[in-house]
């Protein structure tokens, strides 16, 4: 197959999505708790620790500021982990994709199913944090419900980026580079822990292009009760990143598996 051909998708992609959902359902509770633990540790550790020093950040209590950032960061992490480690296991270690492609399911369908699944799983993760912080009283208005589609879109963007890395990975070790060079810096540069205005202007200029910046720029106002500035711009950025990254991932995966 020509690796650059347009995606040829069918509803069979949903069977791939369902396969992953069925596996997740068996371990749903521990999996959700696992996804919650890490961001909540940050939230309470840093939030309580720093809120006495920083009573107000960007007009809200620091812990509320951090909570809105953690929703985005944990969505990013959940989508990345799923599209890297879990998808790589299914592609390379367990040969699950190979088995599926012997059935009337194309590689395009498999990859689309994986993409939508990683985005869905990360949405659960982001929504779980959202629920916890709402129960704790850090969510200002029902506008917060609009954060859910933004979380899903954030999941799509990071799942597609992760699938690019998976398509190139020779082994699990390779993912370390992606986390160290891309995911971790974004946690620090994109406004999760502090407003990016604190950064030198050159760094700010770079950070403005990073996908997590767009997610934070949309989710934080929605949770604090405002309609985001430049909403369409940020939505468009996430959408374009998602589609372009999925296109690249598809091309690379075809080159890897259909040669």
């Amino acid at each position, binding site marked *: 197959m020509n690796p650059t051909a347009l995606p040829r998708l069918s509803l069979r992609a949903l069977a791939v999505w369902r396969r992953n959902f069925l596996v997740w359902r068996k371990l749903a509770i521990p999996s959700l708790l696992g996804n919650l633990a890490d961001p909540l540790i940050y939230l309470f550790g840093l939030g309580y620790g720093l809120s006495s020093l920083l009573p107000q950040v960007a007009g809200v209590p620091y812990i509320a500021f951090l909570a809105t950032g953690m929703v985005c960061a944990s969505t990013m992490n959940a989508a990345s982990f799923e599209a890297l480690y879990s998808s790589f296991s299914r592609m390379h270690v367990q040969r699950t994709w190979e088995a*599926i492609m012997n059935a*009337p399911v194309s590689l395009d369908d498999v990859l689309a199913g994986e993409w939508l699944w990683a985005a869905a799983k990360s949405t659960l993760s982001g929504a779980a944090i959202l629920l916890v912080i709402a129960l704790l009283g850090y969510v200002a208005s029902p506008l917060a419900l609009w954060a859910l589609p933004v979380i899903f879109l954030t999941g799509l963007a990071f799942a597609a980026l992760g699938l690019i890395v998976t398509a190139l990975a020779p082994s699990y070790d390779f993912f370390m580079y992606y986390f160290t060079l891309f995911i971790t810096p974004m946690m620090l540069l994109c406004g999760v822990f502090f407003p990016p205005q604190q950064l030198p202007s050159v760094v700010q200029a770079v950070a403005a292009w990073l996908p997590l910046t767009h997610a934070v720029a949309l989710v934080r106002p929605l949770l604090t009760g405002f309609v985001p500035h430049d909403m369409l711009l940020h939505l468009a950025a996430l959408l374009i990143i998602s589609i372009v990254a999925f296109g690249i991932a598809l091309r690379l995966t075809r080159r890897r598996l*259909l040669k």
Partner: protein
Amino acid sequence: MNAPPGLPLGSPLVVRNLHKSYDGREVVAGLNFSLRRGECYGLLGPNGAGKTTTLRCCLGLTTPDAGEVMLAGLPAPEHAREARMNVGVVPQFDNLDPDFTVAENLLVYGRYFGIRDAVLKPKIPALLDFAGLAGKEQTSIRVLSGGMKRRLTLARALVNDPELLILDEPTTGLDPQARHLIWERLKQLLTQGKTILLTTHFMDEAERLCQRLAIIDNGRTVCEGAPRELIRAHIEAEVVEVYGEDAPGWAAREGGRFSHRVEVSGETAFCYVDAAAPLLDHLAGQPALRTLHRPANLEDVFLKLTGRELRD
């Protein structure tokens, strides 16, 4: 969809003039074969002969550089996805879903064919029974033996009731009991009218199961036909294997006097003869040499045509 001119109609699989190269090395170099409905056809060849690449081309998982493939009446790779609705595959490497139980493996695999759970669920006991796994519905894949996994993979290949089964070395790594059970099940499928394409490098397996087979080497067909025919056409009727420290020396001195052809491998001389009596009389006077007299078989043909040197 019509078959291109010159291709047999109604054949479950037709391969014409197939070529595929990787990094400048031609792995498949002009392969031709077609399957008759209801037969078991074998692709035999040493490691690296191009068997697995050929199967990938047949399933539409890679695009050949040249040639045509018609899978279940549809051109591959263009319409391979639709064609695979009617094909079952047992791959060379185990790829059952380790996150699922035995029954879930079948159920989830059926969904890839668009088979609804309500349709497949009632069929699962019969599929498992066929695979010798009755009552193991709730067993985790991780605790199955190698033989059980292969049998479950065979059952999985049958969820869509395919007309064509493609089996890539289905008994590699299995113990004799497990191999015999697989053979018996494959024969049963043939009597049900299924067509089977089998790759193997077990000659006894090919001789037992295949109505016709092709021996391929370096991506080309070396010979094709029914196993008995190939033995008749390519090799002397009988073989006397001569063992012993001096077997190579004896073969060099005397082998040619009594045999049509002698091949030496290590401390064994393989003497190919049409009538063994004079050779056996002579060997009776050589107490240092042990002998085994047997009819020629497919392995002799295979080794004659593909050579005795190792392929890695």
